[in-house]
């Protein structure tokens, strides 16, 4: 199994970091500082290196230091050999450039998944508490990192949705009957692309379940059993034998409504994932603590799933995770982290976390108003 480590990082004009150079441990890297010091910024920049995207779905121009017109993130990732990654964003051109070993790479499908990355941040609460779209995004991001084919099919499916809703609009405008042949062709395309996604998600959840169970036990050590159920085509998690027939039937049933509302109402873009603890719906009945534990278990499960499937050790970013946990749970997670490999962890004050059991293989980086020093 290949190790994958981020060796160093160089930030220029990146939020509070005018010019920052860092080298990292291949174990745990603690990034310590007060709120607003620029801790999360370091995680954000690492996310850029691996995905060319912003991990909080903010826009690129927000990441530029005030008054500057470009930012730059550079880093070296070591697998068997070293790769130098450079992300450069120019505000004047509103363009971002991604280089791997000085070669420009422009297609996102050629970037995503090359260096798998897992993030655990406070926004993760939307995975268990938020909308179905938050959960689909979580699942799709794992699958896209695991399989380029999945990502390509997902992009194709999204394009199909766009085209189809545009056609539904035209149908309503022109009220013409003969365009039904055209809609039928787009239905076929929707079904083909949709069935692929459903099948892959189904297979994925089957595998992923055990990873979630393992992680949950590791953190909780109690007898609670977590479960993940995939709900597609309005199945609510019930078994569906003939998925294609179900898809076609639903499309028929919803046709009039789709035309009236000019909206794609049937397909995997409506899927949801249901989380259970001891057969009880987490979203409806879970306590705060259970939500938090589940979110953490999901991310660890993602980590170990990607590690097994891609054969690469993902980079793990943990943003402000220990803040809201009781010390017993925090200790469990910190022990669990030792099994991960390289991780980047932001904390406000190390004094509060004596249980973290920091040893001399780890690195502690103190951040203050965009200036870093090693402790």
């Amino acid at each position: 199994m290949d190790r994958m480590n981020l060796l160093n990082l160089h930030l220029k004009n990146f939020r509070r970091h005018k010019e920052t150079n860092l080298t990292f441990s291949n174990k745990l890297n603690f990034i310590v500082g007060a709120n607003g010091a620029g801790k999360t910024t370091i995680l954000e920049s690492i996310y850029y290196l691996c995905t060319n995207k912003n991990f909080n779905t903010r826009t690129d121009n927000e990441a530029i230091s005030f008054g500057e017109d470009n930012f730059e993130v550079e880093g070296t990732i070591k697998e068997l050999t070293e790769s130098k990654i450079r992300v450069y964003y120019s505000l004047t051109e509103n363009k971002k450039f991604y280089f791997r070993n000085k070669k420009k790479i422009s297609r996102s499908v050629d970037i995503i998944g090359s260096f798998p990355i897992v993030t655990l941040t406070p926004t993760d609460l939307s995975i268990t508490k938020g909308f179905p779209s938050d959960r689909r995004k979580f699942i799709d991001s794992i699958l896209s990192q695991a399989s380029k084919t999945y990502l390509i099919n997902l992009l194709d499916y999204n394009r199909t949705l766009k085209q189809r809703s545009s056609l539904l609009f035209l149908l309503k405008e022109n009220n013409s009957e003969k365009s039904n042949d055209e809609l039928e062709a787009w239905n076929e395309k929707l079904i083909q692309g949709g069935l692929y996604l459903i099948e892959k998600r189904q297979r994925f959840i089957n595998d992923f379940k055990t990873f979630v169970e393992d992680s949950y036990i590791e953190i909780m050590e109690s007898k609670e059993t977590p479960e993940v159920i995939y709900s597609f085509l309005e199945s609510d998690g019930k078994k569906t034998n003939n998925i294609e027939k179900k898809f076609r039937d639903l499309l028929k049933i919803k046709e009039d409504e789709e035309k009236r509302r000019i909206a794609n109402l049937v397909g995997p873009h409506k899927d949801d994932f249901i989380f259970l603890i001891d057969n009880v719906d987490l979203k409806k009945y879970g306590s705060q603590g259970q939500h938090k534990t589940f979110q953490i278990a999901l991310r660890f499960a993602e980590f170990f799933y990607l590690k097994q499937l891609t054969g690469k050790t993902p980079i793990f970013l943990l943003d402000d995770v220990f803040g809201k946990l009781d010390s017993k749970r925090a200790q469990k997670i910190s022990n669990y982290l030792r099994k991960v490999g390289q991780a980047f962890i932001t904390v406000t004050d190390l004094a509060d976390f004596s249980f973290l059991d920091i040893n001399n293989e780890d690195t502690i980086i103190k951040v203050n108003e965009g200036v870093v020093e090693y402790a």
Partner: protein
Amino acid sequence: MKIAEPLQIAIDEFSKLPSIGKKTAQRLAIHILKKGKDEVDSFVNAVKDLKTKLRFCSRCFNLSVGELCEICKSGKRDHTLICVVEEASDVIAIEKTNEFHGVYHVLGGVLSPLSGIGPDDLKIKELIKRFENEEFKEIILAINPDTEGETTILYLSKLLKPLGVKISRIARGLPVGGDLEFADEATIGRAVIGRIEI
């Protein structure tokens, strides 16, 4: 600084061309300015002739000098084998291979509601009409396998099925001389799904 008007007009016209930006347009215009009159004349005529001497074949909508294109007129082609393509440039691409000896039909695009292109904007009715006067044994759909192309293939295959003709689509897969090891996963995936029996 204000640029002399004729030069500015030339720059503007050049920059309307695909993949030509303002800077390249200016370089092209100045380059032409430096050329001899004969050279410029022959360039201008070449451009003009594109519009005056070329038209679309009335049968297959390929580019043509006369009413019918060279391929439709040819007695050496197999007129029972028809290949449906998006654009005339695809005819050129396939012709270069020397592997296809049938005739063509150029759709002039693919279905794309986002760009307002429906079946009536493509030469689909004309394709169906050809079945009245010509006898086809096989129809090959050589359309790009992207979202819109795939949907156009689905649309056409449903429309053509009742005509009782053999319908095929070009294979998706690995490039010749390509190393399986280095092909991208999606291409290999499709090649595996579209495998053929030997």
